[in-house]
């Protein structure tokens, strides 16, 4: 069968905690996949969530002998896609398998056998704050647009963002390579409660920096967020490194998969980091994302087309992302040149 090209890339589909002993159904580009955890072997597997025999949903089945077992007639499917039928012991059967991997507290899948890089984000020595997924009723492009411009942060966000009155002063630099789009923003921080300023070790004369790079195989952005003293250029104490994957569930639905990390140690500040920084930052992150989701889902026009809109200087990132999504991620399916295996990585 032919799968959409987007499935060639590794996507996070579940957090580790969400996958227990029972198989789970996930959806990617409209394709349902049964993901399961092998017993006793620290490993995960994934096959098409449709038994090729009579169409049962394998995610309703069970896991036995390193296979997912169909609830209907007991056909068994191994992680490599080979099948066995109790009623037809001589037969040899195959289904569409997916490569599955558990890493960074998430379950990742891609079409079996494709040679693509793994979308690593460098958080060596960072403190994990939170990991979450959130479904958004909007196409991937529309969701991504919100996450790669800061013009909305003045109005939409509670804390992490720029002062609306001074948006005109915000520096916004866009750097592109054939594989990535980097946007550096620096400007006056929205007014922030005293507690948070202390917690984030806010420097004097603070400017908020939001510096991200978006990659397209799969689509994801890695954000470095920190404060600098705008007069001396010196950095404040802590900063966040957030990675957001934009996972297309189907043409009209996108799942955000968010990994939040902080440059802090667990034992730092006499346990204050674990006791306060972690839960507070996690809560704050969720709050801001909910605000974004509410705005996106309420848009009057959720068409992924951006041409024809009135655009400003903050929209250069979204514009640069558009052709890379078509060329790299969707592999020219929309009529542009097809570039296979062009997986330029970090």
């Amino acid at each position, binding site marked *: 069968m032919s799968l959409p090209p987007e499935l060639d890339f590794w996507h996070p589909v579940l957090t580790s905690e969400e996958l227990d002993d029972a198989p789970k159904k996930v959806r990617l580009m409209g394709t349902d996949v049964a993901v399961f955890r092998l017993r006793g072997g620290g490993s995960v597997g994934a096959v098409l969530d449709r038994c090729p025999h009579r169409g049962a949903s394998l995610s309703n089945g069970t896991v036995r002998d390193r296979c997912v077992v169909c609830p209907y007639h007991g056909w068994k499917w191994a992680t490599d896609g080979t099948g066995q039928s109790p009623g037809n012991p001589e037969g040899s059967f195959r289904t569409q398998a997916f490569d599955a991997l558990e890493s960074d507290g998430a379950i990742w899948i891609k079409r079996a056998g494709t040679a693509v890089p*793994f979308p690593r984000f*460098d958080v060596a020595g960072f403190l994990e704050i939170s990991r979450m997924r959130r479904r958004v009723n909007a196409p991937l492009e529309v969701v991504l647009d919100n996450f790669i411009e800061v013009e909305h942060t003045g109005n939409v966000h509670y804390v992490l963002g720029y002062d609306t009155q001074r948006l005109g002063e915000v520096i916004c630099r866009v750097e592109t390579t054939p594989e990535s789009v980097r946007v550096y923003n620096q400007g006056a921080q929205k007014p922030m409660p005293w507690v948070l300023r202390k917690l984030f070790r806010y420097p004097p004369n603070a400017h908020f920096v939001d510096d991200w790079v978006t990659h397209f195989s799969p689509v994801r952005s890695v954000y470095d967020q920190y404060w600098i003293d705008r007069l001396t250029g010196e950095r404040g104490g802590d900063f966040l490194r957030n990675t957001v994957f934009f996972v297309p569930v189907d043409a009209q639905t996108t799942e955000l998969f968010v990994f939040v990390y902080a440059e802090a140690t667990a034992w730092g500040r006499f346990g204050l980091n674990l006791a306060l920084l972690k839960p507070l930052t996690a809560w704050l992150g969720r709050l801001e994302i909910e605000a974004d989701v509410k705005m996106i889902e309420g848009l009057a026009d959720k068409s992924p087309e951006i041409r024809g809109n009135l655009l400003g200087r903050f929209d250069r990132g979204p514009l640069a992302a558009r052709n890379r999504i078509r060329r790299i991620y969707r592999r020219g399916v929309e009529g542009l040149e097809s570039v296979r295996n062009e997986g330029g990585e970090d």
Partner: protein
Amino acid sequence: MNETATDVLVIGAGPAGLAVGGCLKPAGVAFELLERASKVAPRWRDHYERLHLHTFRDLSRLPDHPWPLGVAAYPSRDQVVAYFEEHARQNGLRPRFEREVTSLRREGTRWVARTRGPHGDERWSAPRAVVATGYNRVPNRPRWPGEETFSGRVMHAAEYRNGREWLGKRALVVGSGNSGAEIVLDLFEHGASTSMCVRHPTHVSPRDLFGVIPTQVLGLGLGWLPPKLFDRLALPMTKRLVGDLSAYGISRPERGPMELLQATGRVPLLDIGTVELIRQGRVTVYPGIERFDGSDVVFVDGRRAAFDVVVLATGYHAALEGFLDGAERLVDGKGHPTAFGEEHPDAPGLYFVGYRNPPTGAIHDIAKEAVRVAKAIAHAATTATTTTATATSTAKSSTTSSGTTSGATRSAADPADSGEKKGART
């Protein structure tokens, strides 16, 4: 030949040489820092891109030189290089770059180094010398039968930068040390089909205990215990955290990690994700290589498989015999000096710094050794009745004005000496 005389010769401007220089400077001792490359810390600079310091930032720092803000607990290669550069800058160290020491020998009461490079052949002499060329001066490159028939590429980890060119290719990494394990991760992440050669039983420990505490802290906190007792305490914990890997081709040695380290110098593998890939079947483990055969590698258990690239993470040699006269009297069976962090008992005026790779972290020990060596040198220099006399006392007085430093007897051919600028530091 141009000769420069000074109080101390420091060979190598890597972490150890820089640490020593940074300690000699405020003590007011004149020295020359000789470096074969054109920049400081060349080995770090040339390591693969994915490399991070395997030990915790704040326990791995040069004397009096904190890590800057904005660096995470395990700094990246580029951050480490920037840190060393900043250390050299702040301490006013000006290494003599592109001077490869071809020989270091005792002549009378002085140590004489000969260097070559774009500046021509030069001589440097001093009553004392600190050898800081590192335990990784020369790659250890094993050879196997049939290598000449191999159709793939064989490279040492020292040449490996990243896995970009091996997307969709078959890669084998030989060696299960920390760099071998990280290169395995890097190749997998770049989309190579990756295998690993584990030649010896290996202790595996997670880099962070329970996800948050660096294992290095355990080594530091309990390192004073007798090795056997340390192992009795540490083994059950790592066994619990890592589990039994023998089904995947990685068995535990009979001796405990600390005992093994002291006997063989082999450090445990601080795992950062490689073991998980092995467990999930994304990385295949093979035993040692027996020979190469065309496109295949044949392993000692008789298995064979085809590879496009073989990366040898087989370590390095200190290779002191390559330049140090009489080195064979001063080193042990592994080629490491038998005394370090102090004057070598068999070589008057000769010091070694940075020849250990302990579980507490190489940089951690370098810093300790450098302080001791610099103190000993400063003390010897002030009490010595030899030619050079340092005006200042040993004190840690960091504000020596340039006039008080020694160098009176230094050859006039050497105006821009590295020991003369003010040792201003915080």
